[in-house]
């Protein structure tokens, strides 16, 4: 089964003194992604630029409106995603547990609709 692992974290953590730097986190993600690719589990994934670069288009009763900022104003924001292919949810959760975070964060594990 394919799963999307959606990463949510508080971006402010990277501005904190003594916190793990963005470079260090990117390197940790790189290492995990390389290992998953090696195992043939990785199907895709990307990191996203910070949520203050987001623009949201909202469709409401046929009217499009644009606004500056992410879909939801929350403390933790979608910061990137992995797409993996594993036998079951437990295997997906085991990988989710290994995803590096500089501070607090959350991973939403969502099965991807099977196209066949």
């Amino acid at each position, binding site marked *: 089964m394919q799963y999307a692992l959606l990463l949510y974290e508080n971006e402010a953590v990277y501005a904190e003194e003594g916190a793990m730097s963005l470079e260090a986190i990117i390197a940790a993600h790189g290492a995990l992604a390389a290992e998953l690719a090696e195992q043939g589990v990785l199907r895709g994934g990307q990191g996203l630029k910070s949520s203050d670069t987001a623009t949201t288009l909202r469709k409401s009763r046929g009217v499009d409106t644009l606004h500056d900022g992410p879909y939801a104003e929350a403390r933790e924001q979608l910061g990137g995603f992995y797409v993996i292919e594993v036998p*079951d*949810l*437990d295997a997906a959760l085991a990988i989710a547990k290994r995803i590096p975070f500089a501070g607090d964060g959350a991973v939403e594990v969502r*099965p991807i609709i099977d196209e*066949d």
Partner: protein
Amino acid sequence: MSLLEQSARRDGGRIVAALAAGFRDLDLAEEAYAEACARAAAVWPAAPPLDPAAWLYATARRCALDMIRRRNVRHRTVPERPEPQPSAEDVLTSDDRLIPDERLRLIFVCCHPAVAPESRAALTLRLVCGLSVAEIARAFLVAEPAMFQRLTRAKKKIAEAGVSFEVPGPEAWPERMAAVLSTLEVAYARAHEDAAGSGPHAGYAREMLDLTAVLADLLPGEPEALAFAALVRFAEARRPARLDADGAMIPLAEQDPRRWNRALISNGDMLLRRAARLNRPGPRQLRAALHGAWALRRSLAEPPPWETLLALYDLLLEAGDDPFVRLNRAVVQAEVAGPAAALAEVEALDADRLDGFQPYHAVKADLLARLGHVEEALEAYDRAVEMAPGDAERLWLIRRRADMLYTHKPPDLPGECRGPDGER
């Protein structure tokens, strides 16, 4: 009871569990089993099978394969589902009995952390114990359509999210065992509340003896699982002594220990000792020890073990403060230090939080009555009676209420307050 009813009650849970584990599809397992039962109802009266469980299993499996084939014809693009592993025959024919860990496996599926906690116990009772949605809805005080929806949602989540049907490895047990045990605890508490053993959730009290035995067998290194199995044994051992001739509940301290089931008690004792030898104390071991302390009483001539119980409650509170434990402790404290001290403890509890908890009102009523606060006691008795989980407890409370009025004979309260069980 017909052969089909008998067999369904005894083996239904195992059969559904084995089908679900084999096909990895909970709905399919239930549908196929229901179909097999319908066929059995038509065929068995004329030709009863030698091995009803094997007949039901083999038939249900064929039904399931038919259903998959029909489904695949409907959605031609869907690839053929692989044959279930291991094959049905492997599961069945080893010793003509379904292997018990199929049920355990299904319990682990139902109690997966991905399943909403409020659905876990209900799903376990539905799939493992074979209770009807109506019965489960009644047991959890939820409307039937709401319970049906909750179960449907949980099954859908398991299917769509790809929840694994494997029993997790030991590394996942600390996390998963807690969910499994608390689910079974909720289920058993519902069953045990019904002192008469005749209510909608009486059937699975026996089932719980069986399930906890399976759990203890398969996880011999998990002291909390052993302790829970012990607790169920101690509590079930008292079942024959829990009701009087009128069908009213007999409180623990007044039950005749000679009517307790000694075989179950010694079985519980053995399990609790095994748990203790693993040297990893936990709250379930303390709770089982509380029941075990009572089980040591041999006759009504021996005093109840109040001091031991108080010490065990104190240990339980050390492990984690809990208003429900404090309430139970107050009942024991009333015997050791008197009702006034106990009432002070009960009144220090968070009344708002406990207001919906029936024993809170029953305990308060009893303590107030013993202290002669008749009017307040009446109020608490009325709340407790109104909320009583079954007839046996209601009857007992009504009698206590009447006894209090008889003892205190308040001049301003007329005789209409006597209970419906007559004047004594």
